[in-house]
């Protein structure tokens, strides 16, 4: 097939059924178009989409080490400048690669102002290596390194809020997105491509195996996260912060947590507490308007 007839994300990758990340990859890649170079570190996407002799992406993909997404983008940008090449540079990385091991590189690259679109697909753990906790795993979740056990050692700490950390750099463009809202996601990616300088998208990425829910329900679960008010869709465009969507009638947060086996141990008391926290947050938003201050940790 000719270059422009083939889809940019081709069938035949080895992802799990219902993988949120592959859905996100397709939306992002198609939104950017063929004139891009994609950097993928160690993560599920690296494993499922770049296994020789198959290649999932119909755009150039440069795999890198776990910590090096943003430093590869740095080097690519410098080389593109040296060559006078106009191309969109895309980082596509998991939450571990972004909020943990690659955070210094990401922070440095944003601070230096290189032009790139950094996509963090957040499946809230190290899924490629078997569902260990990451800095983005929500409090209370069971992972393979916070297994609960006889002593009830689930993840005790709230997740770090990577979007807020990135925002603190004064990044020109930042947005959160969800694969359940493809039009919103696509528009944000297009905006990121148009902006000069570093841009960052934080996208919720349901993981049926890691979170423990039926693979047919990925999109539905992602939508419930937004409709319950847990996952906020917003963008920060040159200092102007906007909520992309405020759910009119919020679903109970339990509808997001209860179908996932990683939260199976949560009692109704906890659900009530979580519900109260989310309700309070939205009351503040409704009263005072949305600010990154009210973006408190989930679960």
């Amino acid at each position, binding site marked *: 097939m000719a270059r422009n007839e083939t889809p940019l994300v081709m069938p035949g990758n080895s992802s799990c059924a219902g993988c949120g990340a592959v859905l996100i990859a397709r939306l992002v890649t198609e939104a950017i178009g063929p004139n891009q170079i994609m950097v993928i570190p160690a993560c599920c996407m690296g494993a499922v989409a770049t296994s020789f002799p198959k290649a999932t992406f119909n755009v150039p993909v440069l795999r890198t080490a776990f910590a090096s997404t943003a430093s590869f983008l740095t080097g690519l940008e*410098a080389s593109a400048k040296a*060559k006078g090449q106009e191309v969109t540079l895309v980082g596509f990385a998991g939450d571990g690669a972004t909020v943990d091991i690659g955070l210094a590189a990401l922070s440095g690259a944003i601070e230096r102002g290189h032009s790139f679109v950094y996509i963090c697909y957040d499946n809230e753990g190290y899924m490629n290596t078997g569902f260990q906790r990451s800095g983005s795993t929500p409090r209370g979740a069971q992972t393979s390194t916070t297994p609960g056990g006889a002593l009830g050692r689930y993840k005790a700490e709230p997740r770090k809020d990577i979007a807020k950390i990135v925002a603190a750099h004064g990044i020109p463009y930042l947005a959160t997105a969800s694969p359940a809202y493809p039009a919103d996601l696509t528009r944000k990616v297009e905006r990121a491509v148009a902006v000069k300088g570093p841009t960052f998208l934080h996208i919720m990425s349901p993981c049926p195996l890691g979170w423990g829910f039926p693979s047919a329900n990925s999109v539905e679960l992602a939508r419930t996260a937004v409709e319950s008010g847990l996952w906020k869709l917003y963008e920060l465009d040159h200092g102007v912060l906007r909520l992309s969507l405020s759910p009119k009638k919020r679903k109970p947060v339990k509808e997001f947590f209860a179908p996932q086996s990683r939260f199976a141990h949560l009692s109704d008391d906890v659900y009530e507490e979580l519900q109260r926290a989310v309700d309070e947050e939205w009351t503040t938003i409704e009263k005072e308007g949305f600010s990154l201050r009210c973006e408190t940790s989930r679960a």
Partner: protein
Amino acid sequence: MTSGRNMTATSAVAYAARLAQVDVVAAYPITPQTRIIEAIAKFVADGEMKAQFVQVESEHSALAATIAASSNGVRAFTATSSQGLLYMHEMMHWAASARVPIVMANVNRAVAPPWNIYGDHQDAISQRDTGWLQLFAETNQHALDMTLQAFRIAEDPRVQLPVMVNLDGFTLSHTYEPVVVPEPEVVNRFLAPRPAVDWLDVEHPKTINGVVSPEHYIQFRALQKDAARRALVVIEEVGEAFAEQFCRDSGGLLSLEQVSDAEIVFVALGSAASTIRSMVRAWRSVGRKVGVISVRSYRPFPDAKMAEALAGARVAVVWDRAYSFGCGGPLAGEVKGALYGRESRPVVLSAVGGFGGAPVGPTELEKALEWADASMQGRPVPLETWFGVKAYRDGRTPDGKE
């Protein structure tokens, strides 16, 4: 010949990067490398060099950015030392296995703890098996010349591997020597632009550095092994081409001085070899049959050439400024390996010292010569000696005896 300008080896390397017209420099500062990247930053700021200079936030990122730039087809350079080189370790393997022809100057410095900013080779030797080619400069002029040669070696289609140019911290990096800086037109005749690569061509998309199965994985390693072996030929060719164009012998695999009739031959890397050269001249003037081999290319290791060079010697004193703990001097081990199976070969004495800036000077070298003499006379001598170690506080001696 034009007379040189007085400069440090770090300045010489910066001039080489400028003459090589590198497109991207990504680096992170560390003593004693800093002067290289400061000088490059100044060249760029003054408009004398067109490179994109990026001071990144760590050495891991410095090498990663350099690799990415090189993958996109441009000429990329970085420089580091010691802790910085160790911090790059993951990307060191990456660079070699991704077959990017990066050149990096490594200003050799001891590794911590305890902290020490002065010269030895533990940093470079600890990266021995990453797949990088490693050259060692004896002088500031070599630092410039080898950096230029390194690009031609690295980018040769038969090689396609990153090259590390080692220069001794302080001994070279902070010492002024006359250095001839060649004219750009002459350098352009020696070093062509990098051959084009299409790895990241958006018209013909490819996925690079992906996942492969065991049966394919070893194929990649085999190709890498062949390339590193082919570098033995390319380094010699490039060294000869350089010598022809610039009338200076500052490359090649080994540099031999007074070796052919020598009974005792010293073998060393970097500036220590140049110190030994002057000792050899002094010893020769009093009739001693001593020679020296400067190992210019540590990787690839010219084992056959080494064995041939040592075939007539009775004792080889191999000087290591690094150590493989629980084993021995790395260079000594490699020299012994090169001699394996050879009928005509010297006794190999492993001299260890010059760590953390400690001298490898006349005192140490005279002692080493006495040791080699004793061995030649058939007296029982240790096969390894650490130089410059005092008795321990608990009264034990440093040779391990209680």
